[in-house]
């Protein structure tokens, strides 16, 4: 040990260890900080995991059946039996539904016109009115998709029955005639288009972008605010030793969090993991080092803990939500936003997360992203190192 110390004047393991272990003790003994470190990321994962679902299911709806015939009831049952819709009941008049719509107790209602059965049996077209709450365009669009699909399949089966009866053909033959081009869709990587499969891994990205800078900036600025940073300034600890010692507990905490978040994504939300676990683990540590570096740079400029919190929230939450591909895929962003996304580290780790979880690809495919994260980490730490001074101006 002693010889090792003499060997290198610039990096002294004992001093790094002193700073790191002190930091660790402070974090685990300070209840508030401990909660911020370990509980907040998990809570975020739970809140967003259950909250941020893009699936439209159990949409509450009602039916006004003005025909009240066997066929109209048959038509209505197509919706009532669907898992995408939650049937709230029949109504007689649209006016009865208005208050329910304004109270968000209904999102949609379908009006089956009079003579529905008669018209159809006579071979005349019928229009079914569908009213969908358009306040959330995304949801309305999806609902419309479901409605058309159900409507289409009802029409098809109606026609199939009609033609097979009339021409004495087998129903499946009729279907082939009626719909010569059939669409076969198979969703890659996420066969059932389960949105949580894609959201949960991206949440790991977002939480590991927000939490480490927040903790790091708070931890460093806390010392500045209390004045204990002068112990560092006044001592013989080198800048590099201090930064390594000070930041490594935060990298460790965030790595532990990464494991927790992985477990949640994999087992609570059931997201499949198809990639290389070792590669993913190493890439995640690199990403955490990178985001810890963001905290370091923030901490150099912030003088108070409040400022540190606000600044780190601004520089991480916005990119995590908008420029990372969580909600909107990067290629669908505007040109300007795409440039912003490419400048921020989140996007690259999103590729790594999705690649590892859903696509099952590894270093061979993702090395450019890993490389960019590495460059990021180097730049951030270099900036932090150069901006940090033991002999400040004020």
């Amino acid at each position, binding site marked *: 040990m002693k010889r090792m110390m003499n060997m290198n004047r610039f990096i002294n393991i*004992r001093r790094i260890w*002193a700073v790191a272990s002190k930091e660790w003790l402070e974090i685990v003994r300070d209840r508030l900080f401990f909660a911020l470190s370990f509980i907040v990321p998990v809570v975020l994962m739970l809140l967003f995991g259950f909250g941020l679902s893009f699936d439209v299911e159990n949409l509450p709806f009602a039916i006004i059946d003005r025909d009240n015939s066997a066929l109209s009831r048959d038509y209505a049952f197509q919706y009532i039996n669907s898992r995408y819709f939650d049937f709230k009941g029949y109504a007689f008049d649209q006016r009865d539904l208005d208050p329910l719509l304004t109270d968000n107790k209904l999102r949609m209602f379908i009006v089956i016109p009079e003579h529905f059965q008669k018209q159809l049996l006579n071979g005349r077209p019928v229009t079914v009115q569908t009213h969908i709450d358009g306040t959330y365009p995304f949801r309305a669009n999806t609902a419309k998709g479901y409605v058309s699909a159900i409507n289409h399949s009802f029409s098809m089966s109606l026609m199939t029955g009609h033609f097979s009866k009339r021409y004495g053909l087998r129903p499946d033959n009729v279907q082939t005639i009626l719909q010569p081009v059939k669409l076969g869709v198979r969703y890659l990587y996420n066969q059932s288009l389960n949105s949580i499969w894609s959201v949960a891994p991206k949440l790991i990205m977002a939480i590991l972008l927000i939490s480490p800078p927040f903790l790091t900036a708070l931890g460093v600025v806390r010392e500045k605010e*209390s004045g*204990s940073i002068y*112990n560092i*300034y*006044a001592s*013989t600890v080198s800048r590099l030793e201090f930064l390594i010692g000070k930041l490594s507990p935060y990298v460790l905490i965030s790595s532990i969090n990464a494991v927790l978040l992985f477990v949640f994504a994999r087992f609570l939300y059931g997201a499949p993991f198809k990639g290389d676990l070792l590669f993913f683990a190493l890439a995640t540590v690199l990403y955490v080092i990178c985001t810890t570096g963001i905290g370091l740079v923030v901490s150099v400029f912030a003088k108070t803990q409040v400022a540190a919190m606000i600044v780190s929230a601004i520089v991480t939450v916005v990119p995590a939500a908008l420029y990372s591909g969580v909600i909107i895929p990067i290629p669908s962003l505007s040109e300007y936003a795409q440039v912003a996304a490419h400048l921020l580290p989140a996007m690259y780790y999103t590729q790594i997360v999705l690649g590892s979880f859903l696509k099952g690809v590894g270093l061979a495919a993702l090395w450019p992203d890993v490389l960019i994260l590495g460059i990021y980490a180097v730049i951030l730490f270099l900036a932090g190192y150069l901006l940090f001074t*033991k*002999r400040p101006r004020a």
Partner: protein
Amino acid sequence: MGCAAVVKESGRSPKAAVSVARISGFVKKYRQNVAVRNLDLEIHAGEIYGLIGPDGAGKSSLIKAMAGVLSFDQGTVNLFGTNIDSEKSAEIVKPRIGFMPQGLGLNLYPNLSVEENINFFASLRLVPADELARRKQKLLSVTRLDRFKDRPMKNLSGGMKQKLGLVCTLIHEPELIILDEPTTGVDPVSRRDFWSILTDLLREQGITALISTAYMDEATRFHRMSLMFEGEVMAKGEPDDILNLVPGTVVSLHADPQARAVSRLKEQFLQVESLGSTLRVFVENKLPNAAVQAVVAALDGIGIKDIQPAAPELEDVFVALLHQRHLTDDAPDCPQDSLSGPAALQPVTLKPESLNPDALESDIAIKAEALTKNFGDFCAVDKISFCVRQGEIFGLLGANGAGKTTAIKILNGILTPTSGYGQVAGVDMRCAGKDIKNRIGYMSQLFSLYQDLTVVENIRLYSGIYGLSRRETRERIAWVIHMAGLSGYEKKLAGRLPMGVGQRLALGCALVHRPRILFLDEPTSGVDPVGRRRFWDILFKLSREDGVTIMLTTHYMSESEHCDRLALMYAGRIVADASPLEMKEALKNDAGHLLSVLTGQPLVALKQLEKSGFDGVALFSKRIHLLSKDPGAAEKTIRSVLGRGRIDVVDIAERPLSMEDVFVYRVLELEKGEKGLEA
């Protein structure tokens, strides 16, 4: 006292002093603000060098620059022969320096135990394990912290935090230690303890020290010092040399009528203070007899009692130096004579007899009866009882954390007591309504001014809060401006005011609704001596001319002498409750007179005198203080004890007891009594 020749003789060894630090032409600016201008300083090996001055004097800037943790703008800072002009050069000397920043225990880690804190500092400095164990054991036993080794730092008392800070600073055995206001806010007992530990350790290891303080009365602790004010050195040298810069005599007396005597004296003398019923006048350039004559002559036709000359203290000299350089913030039209301004407070003249001890029950303005306040397990205020009569200035004196602020907040109705009760103007504050709040004024610790409002806007805001009419508001603004000497500052933002002026504005705001009872929480902390004296002048007039009852808290021992009556608070309890004079008299009866001994070898003499059984033996730079009931006999004993040890006695003189002496003695008595009970 005050013989420079003696000082030189008894100084350190005659060989040429080795310079440890040399600073010249030092300038430090923060943006446009100049914190220190053109300062020169030299510190010799083995000495305790002091930087004394009020807040904002530039002490911290200089100290940080010397510790290599702050860059500066001009001049040179040379430590151990290395010129500190970059981070790199600062690193060269850092192994030889120990630095303790300002703020009691703020640089320590609250969640780490005492031992973990020490270990951290030691590891930073690469102290080898066996060496660390040895030093730790020694320092912990010297500071008597060994029993609390495993206690988290956040659960230590103020005095213990300060000692732990010192241990952490000394753990790598630096050659120079730099301590920034180590004693601010610490109770006097811990303060004395701290100084004696520090001087012992420094002497033993030959460490040089640079220490800053805002307490003028700590000057005697230093070998040499610089007196600083607003970024400049007013004077430097040995404490006695600085005292000699403004020769003169302080005359104290009782006069009747006091107010007239004050205004008469102020016509002739720059420094006139009212300390309760005592007047204190600094007569420059006059020997004791001549000074007394000059005062008597000035007070022709006014009854004088107990007139006594004494040597001036550092604060007198400091204020005199500020006057010489016109550095006081006195506006030329400042009302020195009376408070009766354009729209004066209705004159409620207080009869002098209402101050006498047999006052009626109805004269009681504030009363606390077994007042207790617990915060969880912590007892902040422990069954305190006291009475304040109308028109009296009553002080709660104690260290940070003694429970002063809690007590004042209960009496204000801000906090509810856990048990006991507080009465203000005959109303129980537990169930006091709004009208009582209109009769009391409160100035909190942080001056509660709106920094982004101007002086007049602040006063107007407070008038609005108290529901004054527009006409009244106009009158009161004029009155506050006049009373507090704020003319010329009306349109300035409160945040830009000098500390002393801001403090007077806060006082004005607390008085805007003509309260009969005024609560002031640490009104003077951080304000320079001139500002403090001016503030006390105003308080004195409020109490004497307008009959306002004033209750305040302070941790400045010297300031407490202004109060008519004092309660000493320690750890939530009241240790003593009497007038300052009575307290000193009582101490004289219980413990004796204060003797100051000057010898050629103070350190050896100290040990010998301690052994021979004197009370309260303590080292103040080169002088030894001790208490004795019979000064005559004690002098003989001292001479014979020291004679046997072949130590020459230069001078033995009796000194007046200070409030600090009283406080320390009373607290130690209390602790001794408790230990006796436990045993």
